[in-house]
């Protein structure tokens, strides 16, 4: 190359003050001459901004499938992240749920009065899931996350819904496969008790750790069923009969009101 830019030429060019012909010759030159390119003065603020914009695109972490799906369903970006980030035990619970429900179905199809097993377990499944989704002991990062503004109530309820959706779906699917399943009613008879148990454990978690609260509620449920079975006087399925459902609904409404009141005052 026979010539190079003078600093003055570089300056003129960079500030859009070169005439057409000079600009053309400068351009022909700097396409191949790195030292002359470096003569152009940098606008540091613009460079930093431009790089930040660029980095934001090239360095965006990939979203997991759950997060992606949730965003597609219109869930807010941050909320989707929180919902997708359920602790490891939750996955184990999901697997265990499938196994337990499959066992219940087998029992229902092959054992006399086998469908009782489903009636016993279905309302407990969401309860166990909720207990495994939040709190010290089951959530490894609990110590780190528990003192953030969003943790506590809000995170607990988010996690609860992350549990309830798959739990209710799985139980409904299982209920539809029951030998007695002929009516829409038989697919959802367990629903109100299940929700009531979860709501009960959430209310109790005001005073107890969530895991302990769920254990208490779950034990109560199983004890009641066991007692009814043992006494032989009344059919345990009475607890799920249409007349009993009204009581469940009443209890659920009361508990939900208690939760709402607690969230309000929280």
């Amino acid at each position: 190359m026979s010539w190079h830019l003078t600093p003055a030429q570089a300056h003129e060019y960079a500030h859009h003050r070169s005439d057409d012909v000079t600009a053309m010759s400068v351009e022909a030159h700097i396409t191949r001459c790195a030292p002359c390119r470096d003569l152009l003065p940098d606008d540091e603020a613009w460079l930093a901004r431009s790089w930040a914009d660029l980095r934001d695109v090239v360095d965006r972490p990939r979203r997991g499938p759950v997060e992606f799906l949730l965003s597609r369903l219109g869930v807010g970006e941050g909320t989707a992240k929180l919902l997708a980030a359920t602790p490891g035990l939750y996955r184990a619970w999901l697997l265990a749920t499938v196994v337990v429900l499959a066992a219940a179905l087998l029992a229902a199809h092959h054992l006399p009065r086998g469908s009782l097993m489903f009636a016993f377990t279905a309302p407990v499944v969401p309860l166990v899931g909720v207990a495994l989704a939040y709190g010290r002991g089951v959530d490894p990062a609990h110590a780190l996350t528990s003192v953030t503004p969003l943790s506590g109530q809000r995170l607990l309820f988010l996690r609860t819904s992350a549990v309830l959706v798959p739990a209710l779906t799985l139980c409904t699917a299982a209920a539809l496969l029951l030998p007695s399943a002929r009516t829409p009613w038989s697919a959802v008879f367990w629903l109100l008790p299940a929700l009531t148990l979860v709501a009960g454990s959430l209310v109790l978690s005001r005073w107890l750790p969530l895991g302990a609260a769920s254990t208490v509620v779950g034990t109560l449920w199983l004890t009641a069923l066991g007692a009814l079975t043992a006494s032989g006087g009344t059919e345990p399925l009475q607890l799920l009969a249409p007349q009993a459902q009204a009581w469940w609904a009443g209890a659920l409404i009361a508990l939900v009101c208690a939760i709402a009141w607690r969230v309000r005052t929280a």
Partner: protein
Amino acid sequence: MSTLSAPVHVRGLTRRYGTRTALEGLDLDLWPGVTGLLGRNGAGKTTLLRCLATDLEPSAGRIRLLGRDPERAAERARIRARLGYLPQNPEFYPYFTAFGLLDYMAVLKELGGRRARHDEVRRGLERVGLTDRRHSRIRRLSGGMRQRLGLAAALLGDPEVLLLDEPTIGLDPEQRIRFRGLVSELGVRSTVVLSTHQIEDVAALCQRVVCLDEGRVVFDGTPGELVDRARGHVWDHDGHPGRGHTAWRLADGRYRVLTPTSAPAGPGLEPVEPTLEEAYLLLTGAR
């Protein structure tokens, strides 16, 4: 200024676990700057930090953080938005990436929309030197890297109150120097409490030292004042002073002796200027 309360204000703080008392009637006022929290294992350091982090509720007494009452839920959320906490031995979701974990923490800390949050996450990774490993799964990070990640999580959003429980465990010397730079920088504006066994960190960083023993404050002052207390208790001696003394052999063959009582110089005992570590040993060992 006198009407303003300290960012961390503690009166009569007591915390019991069953019948065991971990903290008993603590009074503390902490201001912006770095305060070192020293004490043996079980002295109550972690319990104090968890109480200050709004993680544990006091059994008795009163805590005010940034002028607010952490026992009221609404105020607690406001406090938490301006508080950073690194727990002892922090655990993470191993299948998260470093970036993903900080991003998750940033959502929980409500640090704005995606772009602002990601920029803050990147700044956090840069601060602790994890930029190159940002997309690595946490289970593939070394212990020191996880510790730095926890630190970055605590630092997100430049909290006004920063509580660090043994933050330098697992850090190599270079990382520790870097950590000191970070913390001292934050200490200009924020109230930083640093619980540690690393006396060098306290000597290098802290304007103030609080020593706990069995749930009580046994010393509260500057590192200089702690050293002053030890003056006249630290000696060099030609031979081993005998059992019952805290002593160790120095590189030059003489013995460093710590005497709980300010005993007069005996033959061969030469007074030495105490280090902060020796002063701390005297404070806890003398009891």
